[in-house]
């Protein structure tokens, strides 16, 4: 190929094309990743020079109740968010995967919250969940005669759960779209054959749709788990980690320790815990992918 010949004579050309990406990769990803690792072994409050502490930050982490609380919050949020967006996302995808007049309108409607900012969403939900003036408690009190409706974001036991539900509400259109694409990839011959064999709708869903959807499900699972750790914006907007530290997750705690408490070293050790969790989950998923995504057509 002529083109190959030209490329071979000017070896630097590909690197010119890659220059911005390489600067970005090293400057804003690789170097900060290594730097954060080193910082996690220091005490550093921006204004004074860093001081080597060895493993002290990690020791402090593992012996502090606050840290285990934060870790628990992080996983509670994930445990609500991931099944929430996946199950509702799949149901929505099945619903909008019908040839109906106006189906594009419904798809558009269900996806719309995904493009809006989590800040604006946090604001309006804060208003909806307002204990005294919010519409939700009004409906609970007067339509469903709940006598003592919860204080939602003001309640230590509920704030985090409420935020996770808001996140599910906002993001589920995304999982819907991914599942929809997966559903539309399943060849219709399978359904026609099953119909001839007398399989009912449920049997077709469990025996054809779910197994053939498993590659999509796997992909959506990874994306949703990773997505669930990126909750800084909605937490910052809705509760700033409160009341107390009852809705503080890892992402928020990193920000809080580094930039409010000026504990850059300690915050870096939190950042590394987050990195290890994300890395582990990705690896586990890749391992299990081979085991349970086995249907090919």
């Amino acid at each position, binding site marked *: 190929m002529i083109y190959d010949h030209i490329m071979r004579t000017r070896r630097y050309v590909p690197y010119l094309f890659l220059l911005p990406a390489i600067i970005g990769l090293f400057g804003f990803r690789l170097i900060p990743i290594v730097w954060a690792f080193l910082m996690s072994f220091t005490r550093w409050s921006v204004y004074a020079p860093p001081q080597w502490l060895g493993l002290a930050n990690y020791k402090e982490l593992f012996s502090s109740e606050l840290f285990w609380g934060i870790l628990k919050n992080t996983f509670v949020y994930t445990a609500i968010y991931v099944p929430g967006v996946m199950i509702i996302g799949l149901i929505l995808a099945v619903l909008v995967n019908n040839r109906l007049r106006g189906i594009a309108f419904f798809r558009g*409607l*269900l996806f*719309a919250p995904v493009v809006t900012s989590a*800040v604006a969403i946090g604001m309006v939900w804060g*208003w909806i969940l307002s204990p005294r*003036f919010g519409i939700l408690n009004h409906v609970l009190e007067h339509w469903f005669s709940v006598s003592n409706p919860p204080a939602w974001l003001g309640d230590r036991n509920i704030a985090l759960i409420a935020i996770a539900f808001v996140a599910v509400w906002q993001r589920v259109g995304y999982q819907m779209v991914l599942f929809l694409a997966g559903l539309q990839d399943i060849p219709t011959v399978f359904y026609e054959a099953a119909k001839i064999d007398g399989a009912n709708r449920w049997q077709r869903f469990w025996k054809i749709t779910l197994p053939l959807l498993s590659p999509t499900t796997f992909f959506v699972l990874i994306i949703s788990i990773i997505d669930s750790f990126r909750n800084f914006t909605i937490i910052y907007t809705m509760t700033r980690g409160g009341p107390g530290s009852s809705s503080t997750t890892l992402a928020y705690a990193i920000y809080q320790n580094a930039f409010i408490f000026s504990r850059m070293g300690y915050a870096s050790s939190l950042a590394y815990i987050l990195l290890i969790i994300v890395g582990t989950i990705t690896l586990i998923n890749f391992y299990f992918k081979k085991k349970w995504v086995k249907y090919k057509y």
Partner: protein
Amino acid sequence: MGVVKKVTLYTSLSIMGFFSVFPLLWMVATSFNSSGAIFKVPPTIIPDMLFKRGMWSNYVSIFKDYNFGRFTLNSTIVAFSAAVGQLITCSMAAFAFAKMQFKGKEILFGLLLATMMIPIEVTIIPEFLIMFKLHWLNTYLPLIVPSFLVGSFGTFLLREFFENVPDDLIDAAVIDGANSFAIYRRIFLPLAKTPLTALFLIAFMNNWNALLRPVLYIDKESLFTLTIGLTNFQSQYESQWNLLLAGSVVSILPLIVLYIFLQKYFVEGIAGTGIKG
């Protein structure tokens, strides 16, 4: 399709659709309430200022008294520059990965892949120190430059697209005397209009909606983006929900309008590039 099934489907879709837009409608409704009406019990379903004189007064107020015009301009500048940058960075890198052979290709690609999933919170502390050392705090630069230069998902999306462009097109251009930049600029970019549009919109959306970087890098009000303008307003004027939600409407309206007209690109781009920014 049977009538029963049709009715069931339309009913379920309408219920789901209602839940998915109700909070947005409630945001709009509250933004047309006067400060007295928002604290009425029971809540007023029809906003008291709607279609009356002074209906737009909340909106006038956030633009006149609280600088939301400036915030909108700042968000536009930041999101537009970052998105254009991402198109440049990703398309050039994707072109090299798709059509060129060079040393270190596998390693570079592997590194992009490996760092793709790492949340920004992991790297934000060193990034802050870099911005601090560069004296970029309280400028647009720290909001633009990292998104300008980092875009693994966009690179993958475009690489896949570019790989499917036949080599014959390149050969023909080479015979005509085109160099590799001309080939990238005149053949590949025009062919990739659809994925480039999708990528632009997603990058624009992600940067428009971003909060962490503005919170860290900006404390001068004249440089606030809409997101930090809103959270700042929220902490200062806690009970003025009508103004806060008018501001929220302003902050989501541009994206909703873009979404209504370019829905296909948004859906394709989000499904293709995955994950929020």
